[in-house]
């Protein structure tokens, strides 16, 4: 063994001695290298020809049932165990019914990180329909070639289809007056409540706290009586935070969407309140996943999150032998709270007339009566055709069995859109905003300074 070990030592240190000689040689080579660099960049420049396409007209191609058109549907719901089955059912039902009849085959692609559609579009793959979140829609529209519904689908058919969908919801996917996304899966924030912990703490889960002050009192009471955390809201959640700010009279983005505006006193006060909960042990620490786990394991009294977790929470409650209750997003004082929406729109980018027709069939199905019935009953999102909740053939029974949905449908009337950050720096802006909120809540830094700094940084990135 000894000789090899001896040799090894020289090997290891010699690797570095190469570099010395190397750098000397590089000096000599520098001239040549520069020429090479200039040359190659010229090659690239000439290789990168422009290839922009003109906007398509609102005409649909002819579908052929004998020779079906295949389209891809990128969905994050397909990647989550709690939502997967419902989403698969939705796709399968379409393929077996309308798809078969008209000649469309939809292929679902699970996209757990919501990054894959970007990567695949940049890889030149065919990405036709994307379940897209709100905050970065504008950026995708600009850089990923998503199309406005008005530009590609026939106007009369579009108008006909949109009837019955909550007008509030329709507004949310619009940018500069055009619809770049049709509201698809949709939820509002809700306070999930563990009935057992409430009762153990001497509280009545049927009369849940309404204001943030009551939340704090209840949370501390649960903690004192049961030793378990009373309340949880993840600082990095992103969207519920916006509801908090709006509820206190602040705003995230200015009305004209030209600047960020979350540094106002109302916003600061809202975040300050949350910081107070957090630092006084009234708000449990943890990531979104960790808090969800904690709640479902029966170790958290109240948990604010998306309705999408309803089916999972209900199952966990049944398994753990406790009862699940719910409450609306808490309010500041006497002013009713302003919830924002979470969830997704369908963004489309068909590249031919036939595909446009195929995509349109799919859109009509999944955002139609049957589609929303499946989405609500199997996955847990809200029915955006609100009429379905009273429709005996639709979701009447379901909503009666799951009273938590009434809270959400009620909130739908007060809902405000989540901020769609403008321009192609949207992802970066959304991150700066979220980071600033997390920092304000968790650290000892001054809320006002943190938010103002972030606001300025975002304004520096505005288009």
């Amino acid at each position, binding site marked *: 063994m000894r000789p090899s070990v001896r040799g090894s030592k*020289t090997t290891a*240190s010699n690797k570095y001695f190469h570099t010395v000689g190397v750098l000397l040689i590089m000096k000599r080579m520098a001239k040549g290298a520069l020429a090479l660099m200039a040359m190659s960049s010229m090659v690239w420049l000439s290789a990168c020809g422009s290839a922009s396409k003109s906007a398509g007209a609102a005409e649909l191609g002819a579908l052929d049932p004998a020779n079906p058109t295949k389209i891809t549907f990128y969905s994050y719901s397909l990647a989550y165990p709690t939502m997967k089955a419902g989403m698969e059912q939705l796709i399968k039902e379409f393929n077996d019914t309308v798809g078969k009849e008209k000649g469309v085959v939809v292929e679902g692609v699970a996209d757990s990180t919501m990054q894959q559609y970007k990567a695949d579009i940049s890889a030149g793959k065919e990405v036709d329909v994307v379940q897209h979140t709100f905050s970065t829609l504008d950026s995708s529209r600009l850089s990923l070639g998503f199309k406005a519904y008005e530009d590609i689908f026939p106007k009369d058919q579009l108008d006909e289809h949109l009837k019955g969908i909550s007008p509030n919801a329709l507004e949310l996917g619009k940018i500069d007056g055009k619809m770049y996304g049709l509201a698809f899966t949709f939820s509002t924030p809700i306070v999930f409540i563990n009935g057992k912990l409430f009762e153990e703490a001497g509280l009545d889960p049927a009369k849940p706290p309404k204001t943030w002050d009551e939340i704090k009192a209840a949370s501390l009471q649960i903690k004192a009586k049961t030793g378990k955390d009373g309340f949880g809201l993840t600082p990095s959640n992103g969207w519920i935070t916006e509801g908090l700010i709006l509820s206190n009279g602040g705003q995230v983005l200015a009305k004209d969407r030209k600047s960020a505006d979350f540094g106002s006193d109302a916003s600061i006060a809202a975040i300050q309140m949350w910081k107070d909960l957090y630092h006084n042990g009234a708000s449990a620490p943890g990531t979104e996943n*960790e808090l969800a786990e904690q709640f479902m394991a029966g170790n958290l009294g109240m948990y604010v999150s998306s309705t999408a977790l309803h089916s999972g929470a209900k199952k966990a409650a049944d398994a753990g032998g406790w009862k699940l209750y719910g409450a609306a997003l808490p309010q500041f004082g006497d002013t009713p709270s302003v919830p924002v929406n979470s969830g997704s729109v369908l963004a489309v980018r068909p590249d031919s007339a036939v595909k446009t027709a195929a995509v349109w069939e799919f859109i009509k199905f999944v955002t139609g009566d049957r589609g929303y019935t499946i989405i609500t009953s199997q996955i847990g999102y809200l029915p955006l055709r609100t009429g379905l909740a009273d429709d005996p053939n639709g979701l009447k029974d379901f909503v009666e069995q799951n009273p938590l949905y009434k809270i959400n449908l009620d909130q739908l009337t007060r809902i405000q859109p989540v901020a769609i950050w403008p321009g192609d720096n949207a992802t970066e802006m959304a991150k700066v905003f979220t980071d600033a909120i997390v920092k304000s809540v968790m650290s000892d830094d001054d809320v006002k300074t943190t938010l103002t700094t972030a606001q300025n940084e975002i304004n520096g990135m505005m288009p």
Partner: protein
Amino acid sequence: MSQSLDNTIAPSLSGGTIIVRRRLSKKKLRRFKPYLYLLPAVALLSIWMYRPLLYTFYLAFQKWSMVPGTSPVFVGFDNFEHLFHNKSFIDSIGNTIFYTVGLLPFSILIPMILAVVTDRMESKSKNFYRAMFFIPMILAPVSVSAIWRWLFHPSNGLVNYLLVKLHLIKEPIAYFSDPGFAKWIILLITGWKMIGFSTIMFSAALTSINREYYEAASQDGAGSFRQFVHITIPLLSPMIIFMLTMSILFSSQWTFAYIDMLTTGGPYGSSTNIYYEMYRFAFSSLNAGLSSAAALLFFVVFGLIALGLNMVSRKFAFYDN
């Protein structure tokens, strides 16, 4: 071994020059032969290393989302300007330094002590210890992250359970979402993985130190600590500098996987590093220009550091022989 040469830049080993009587065509062929053998390696390096490097330098001055059908647009030094106004990027530089410096105990100090302590043991137990220390090194980052995530889980993790049981903390800590802990945990995991490897490197270097030095020192009455300081450290200095260089150049790459798996750089960027930001700029914000500008910048910075360390290592090189 008589023929082995130490000149690393232009070694001549072959007996090729001995046989000179060859026909011209063969001679010509011979002249091309080295290039032929080098061709696959050099061609592949050009395609996958140097072409992309130059392309990255080019992209640093462009704005591009990498979407097919779109082309880069020249923007001058805009990307660099944005970079220096990007708070998360500025913060990431501080973290990069934190990780680089923080890793040094794990890659040098602790391993050196372990190597010295195990050095004079009988070979059976020595090999056993070293084999055990080495296990973390061969495990994949994803597996390692999954395991530590579970160990440090806030409500159900073993670490919190034990700390609470031992009354060291009052309440469970959410390590990965706490800005005070996130980067320390990542450092700890990276270091945990490094110790075994560095220990073995130092052990190998120790084995080659001549025992007579110690015997002489011992006769002069020097205690083990003084021997360590006056003999071991100077004789190990080439290895120390080697590990230092590796540690500095690579620590940002070693932490990358854990950042991505455990915290994605958060909370509020408190655990990110420059390489993770580059990745985020490119594949999350689809801003190839910004990412490339950062790459260009740090290529230069690390180049200078490597050059500096090289000079230092040449100064110490005489200990090697």
